């Protein structure tokens, strides 16, 4: 199965990191993967997004135009991309940051107050990982064990102390 994932939010919310974790997890599961960031001027304080493809087959365009999974970390991102989600696709919103409802009934919409949960659990900046936890729970795109391996791979050795926080954040999403 091919997952075409689009993660979008403000610069600084960890959208690109979120995407890297997904790509690394796919790689660990033996899939073909690609990661492509928006690198336009919008990155400077504005909206930011990244495309991640996970597939059993070689990946064509790494740019996701019609996502099967949309992760929206703010209202503008949801509004900008909701119409492009494929029918039957999955939409996951950080409801702390998204103040509108998902306007379509042909997609599976989930929301979780990820930013609030991150703040409540002393996991500043961990909303992105909580959303990955939610994604794992709702789609089974990969397992929590794969996620753990991915985080251990991506977090550089000098920041090893951050691994535990990331694992805790993912569990919050998975258990929500």
């Amino acid at each position, binding site marked *: 199965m091919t997952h075409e994932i689009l993660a979008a939010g403000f610069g600084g919310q960890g959208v690109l990191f979120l995407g*890297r974790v997904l*790509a690394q997890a796919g*790689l660990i599961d033996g899939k073909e*993967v*690609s*990661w*492509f*960031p928006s*690198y*336009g*001027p919008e990155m400077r304080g504005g909206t930011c997004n990244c495309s991640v493809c996970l597939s059993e087959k*070689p*990946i*064509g*365009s*790494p*740019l996701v*135009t*019609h996502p099967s999974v949309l992760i929206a970390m703010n209202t503008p991102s949801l509004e900008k991309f909701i119409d492009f989600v494929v029918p039957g696709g999955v939409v996951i919103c950080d409801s702390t940051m998204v103040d509108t409802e998902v306007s379509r009934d042909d997609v599976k919409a989930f929301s979780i107050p990820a930013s609030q949960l991150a703040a409540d659990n002393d996991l500043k900046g961990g909303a992105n990982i909580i959303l990955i936890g939610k994604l794992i729970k709702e789609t089974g795109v990969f397992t929590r064990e794969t996620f753990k391996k991915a985080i251990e791979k991506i977090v550089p050795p000098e920041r090893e102390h951050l691994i535990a926080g990331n694992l805790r954040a993912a569990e919050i999403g998975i258990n929500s």
Partner: protein
Amino acid sequence: MKGNEAVAEAAIRAGCKCFFGYPITPQNELPAYFAKKLQASGGVFLQAESEIAAINMVLGAASAGVRSMTSSSSPGISLKAEGISYIAGSDLPCVIVNVQRGGPGLGSIQPSQADYLQATKAMGHGDFHVIVYAPCSVQEMVDTVFKAFEIADLYRMPVMILADGLLGQMMEPVSFPDFTLSEPTKKWAADGHGGKRKKNIINSLFLQPDDLERTIRERFARYDEIKARETEAELYMTEDADIVLVAYGATARVVKSAVNLAREQGIKAGLVRPVTLWPFPEKELNEGAQNARALLCCEMSMGQMVDDVKLAINCSKPVTFYGRTGGSIPSPTEILEEIKRIGGVV
């Protein structure tokens, strides 16, 4: 690894000892990687005061027989044009990377393929060519870097890797093949003779027309050899194809997806992907298109490769074009619609 970083790592492994550059999006990760790693492997990274300075530093380092590289993106490559012509005129090997962005002028910083004509036809003034490779994945970027240094040394000429913002910015898994360094002895290099041999002169100025003509004819004899030996293309599902698409680099990936979509709907589409843009894979294109009724050229430009496609098949079949430009990337569904429009038979 990002495409840009992978290119730099591959270059270091391929024995690149000098990198000279000047920052420009979307290729900045490439010099940044060299800045971190090249010195540790005994090389020199230098951020020059301009693109023009950087390419002339490459000329200098290459003259001394050192594997050298520069990279830039479209507007910066234009600035390097004069230096590239001098390097070609001096028969020096080097590798130049162009991570293309939208043009003309400062254009945009998004992916583009609008420097095709510049790279393949007119990379500078004078009678010369550079070999142009167009990889389509991060792994192929790596493999191309190794090959580019070898080929540059073999034929003593500049080799360009024509990438784009999409390939430079995207991350894909990549492996670095075991690479045994096989740098030839460069007897022509101006690397100090210590009074033990005749001096070597690196020069592109020949005031006597006969002398200049001779050097150019020698060079073009080499070009014929390159055309015969180094031309490369990938043929994908072309055996029974009614419609053959022609695309290179990042666009070829999108086209491959479109070909797969077309096949799912019973349309016999195929893809010829030129891997070398100069020399253009004429033989391979004819082979791939032999059963086709029509060809469709797809690019992120206004159609710069179309004439090469028409010439290669001697206008024996209709060639149409679909492209996006200015930094927009076509989607597989857009291309599928175009395949249907020009008459994909179900």
